[in-house]
């Protein structure tokens, strides 16, 4: 199987997010980025599939500040090939724009399975897996937690609410939005990434016409803070004492 894994970076939510002067985007100057955790799981599931059943794994990303590092990490983890889609992808890239550029590149690469993260924290205009599938003219299954080979078909598990899953038999070509890999995504030390970066060649594919989002950001704003919790401070001993008091008052302990 030829598995293509679109991956991207998203702002690290551990950091404070600020809104820029336009009021329509994050202030990106000091943003810290990290791989979309669901894409990390998609890459892991693709690698697990390859290790069990053979095939090739191609990681692909849109050009951007840390695109090369993201791809070098993928190759250090075990991807066979890394591809960068070049074009103007600065600032906020809509899901529609990303999905069209990805789908065009994937089409030219050829594929049996596309595995990407089921969602990202900045998917304002929708999840890319379904959009990539629509551009490629193939079905998509999302919230997938395992992809295995069973005879001539793939067997996938898809999660619903309440801990219930559905099992599906799927013929390729197909796109999966991965929720979680069967294993925790593997960790690679920086030294290995650096080493991988020296031998690895990044294939570049130029994006042709960039698609728009179809809807516009009118404004971005922080949700009203507070209004909810009565804050008990940052001192652990004092907060713990107050919590015990509250629990006693409510008859919980």
């Amino acid at each position, binding site marked *: 199987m030829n598995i293509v894994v679109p991956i991207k970076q998203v702002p690290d*939510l*551990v950091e*404070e*997010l600020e*809104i820029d002067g336009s009021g329509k985007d*994050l202030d990106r100057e000091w943003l810290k980025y990290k791989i979309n955790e669901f894409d990390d*799981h998609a890459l892991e599931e693709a690698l697990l599939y390859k290790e069990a059943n053979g095939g090739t794994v191609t990681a692909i990303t849109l050009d951007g500040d840390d695109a090369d590092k993201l791809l070098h990490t993928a190759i250090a983890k075990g991807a066979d090939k890394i591809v960068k889609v070049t074009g103007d992808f600065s600032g906020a890239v809509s*899901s*529609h724009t990303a*999905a069209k550029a990805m789908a065009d590149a994937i089409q030219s690469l050829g594929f049996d399975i596309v595995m990407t993260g*089921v*969602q990202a924290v900045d*998917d*304002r*205009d*929708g*999840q*890319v*897996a*379904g*959009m990539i599938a*629509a551009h490629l003219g193939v*079905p*998509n*299954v*999302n*919230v997938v937690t395992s992809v295995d080979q069973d005879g001539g078909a793939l067997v996938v598990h*898809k999660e619903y609410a309440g*801990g*219930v*899953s*559905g*099992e*599906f038999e*799927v*013929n390729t070509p*197909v796109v999966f939005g991965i929720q*979680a890999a069967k294993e925790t995504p593997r960790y690679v030390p920086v030294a290995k990434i650096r080493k991988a970066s020296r031998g690895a060649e990044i294939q570049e594919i130029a994006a042709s016409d960039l698609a728009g989002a*179809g*809807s*516009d*950001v009118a404004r971005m*704003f*922080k*949700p*009203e*803070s507070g*209004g*909810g*919790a009565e804050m*008990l*401070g*940052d001192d652990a001993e004092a907060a*713990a004492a107050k*919590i*015990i008091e*509250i*629990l006693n008052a*409510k008859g*919980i302990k």
Partner: protein
Amino acid sequence: MSKIFVFVEHLNGNVDDITYELIGKGKELGDVTAVLIGPKDLASQLGGAGNVINVDDPALSDFNPEAYAKAMSAVIDAESPDMVLFGYTSMGMDISSNLSVSKNLPFVAYATEISAGSIVSSLYGGKVNVESSVSGSCIVSVIPGSFPADAGKGDGSPAVQDMAAPDFSSLSVKFRKLIEPEGGDVDITTQEVLVSAGRGIQSDENIPMVEELAGKLGGAVSCSRPIVDNKWLAKTRQVGKSGLKVKPKLYLALGISGAPEHIEGMKNADLIIACNTDPNAPIFKFAHYGCTADLFDLIPALTSKL
């Protein structure tokens, strides 16, 4: 009146609450039609909708991402609705963004508020809201729990319009079976006290500390999604979207930032106490009490006092 279509979610013969939430909201926006892909007898659960369009076929008896998307596509082609509402859910995700591209309709996801031409989404794990402007027809996926379900419920049998199923002879995706959650573990939905671990717990080595505290409180350990995705706790412990909905007397959230997917599973708990070092964490909007102490100081402090 705007034509508002609602995609009906059902599993095991039960229409899910998200459908009623969307029908209720849809009624404020226009004329609601519930689109029921699958068994026609489920229309009896859709008394809150003015109209029901039903596409029924043996291939649709259980949810199938490919078949349901095809059926929904045929309905949109035939009816040209002004707005199509989906839940931001497992089923909704399989169809909504796909149709946005294939039908060339704008799409706004993670919605928590909808009014004519303007939709507010909760992004970046609930830390930033984004208002989108949309002109013309569009597709919207809504975070469950954003609107009251009661507004979309109603007695009586709505008028059902049957629509022919598209050709399903060459489907690539086949439904095999449903897998119920494994038993044998603690049922977190029946616990009176839940001590819930989030990403802030940092490592599986810190889980025993949380278990000890839960034990002292006479409750059980639950968690947010990243903890399960990292295999630190079993799936049966997960609260929120793709996990379980809980309503304990006490929900102690430790290192949980409060992404919308988590909030929908626990916001109805009687007492929510949250600890997170980020004073802007969305969880504090939903908690009754909060503290910003370091978890690894707070947990032992609490445990020693109990």
